[in-house]
């Protein structure tokens, strides 16, 4: 059976989309939950500043910690995205291997 590039590319894209659509809800939900938490803490810090319970130096330190936490969440989102892409690529590679081996009738790869 001859390999058809058009069919193979469609199968590869299906593998990509399948993995990414499986992973995306988890990534999105994590981002949503953390964004809400960090928004709440920003409001709490503002209340401390406005009420005079902390001075400028203390406010700066609180905001440093806030910024670091936000940055860390964004880094995790980046990492989860990269892992999803990696899984999608490997799923596509598996499609190619299976297609080639089926086409040849034996396991070349």
């Amino acid at each position, binding site marked *: 059976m001859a390999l058809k*590039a*058009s069919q*193979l*590319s469609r199968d*590869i894209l299906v593998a990509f989309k399948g993995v990414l659509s499986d992973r995306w809800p988890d990534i999105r939900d*994590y981002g949503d939950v*953390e964004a809400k*938490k*960090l928004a*709440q*803490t920003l409001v*709490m*810090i503002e209340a*401390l500043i406005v009420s005079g*319970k*902390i*001075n400028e*130096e*203390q406010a700066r*330190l*609180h905001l*440093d*910690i*806030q910024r*670091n*936490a936000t*940055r*860390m*969440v964004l*880094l*995790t989102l*980046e*990492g*989860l995205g*990269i*892992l999803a*892409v*990696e*899984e999608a*690529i*490997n799923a*596509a*590679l598996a499609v*190619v*291997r299976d297609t*080639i081996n089926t086409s040849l009738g034996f396991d070349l*790869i």
Partner: protein
Amino acid sequence: MRHADRAIDHRMRAGIVILVALLAASGCTVRLISGYDEATDRAVTALQKKTEAHLVALESADGLPECTHEHHRQFYDEAKVDVSAIAVRAAAIPKNEITTEQVMLLSGSLGALEQLHRIACLSKDQIAPLRTQLNSSFTAILKLELAKRRGG
């Protein structure tokens, strides 16, 4: 224009197929990020527990003489050592740049926490947002680390 678009789309798809075929033919599995590291998982989890114990102790000491930084130096000294060890290990693992950067940010946050405590005792009002931010920080590192288990 539409003919040109179709031609570009066809070339892109052909390019993807060729690239993927070459990768498949080499028998390789692509790995873009390091694998799961149990030692990092355990150490970060332990540091989170230690940090939470510290915040709980500060809440209990709110308004009391024992609330000062001097009474809690041990936590800060130990946390510095713990986070340094985690950072060194993370940096030694290939393709682990994201986790390494996260641990450096955590180190910065713990440093800022100590500076806050040196200025004045930490009230319950301050501890509440700090707890959320630090837990978000720890969760961020652990979330990614656990995801590296790949199918686990």
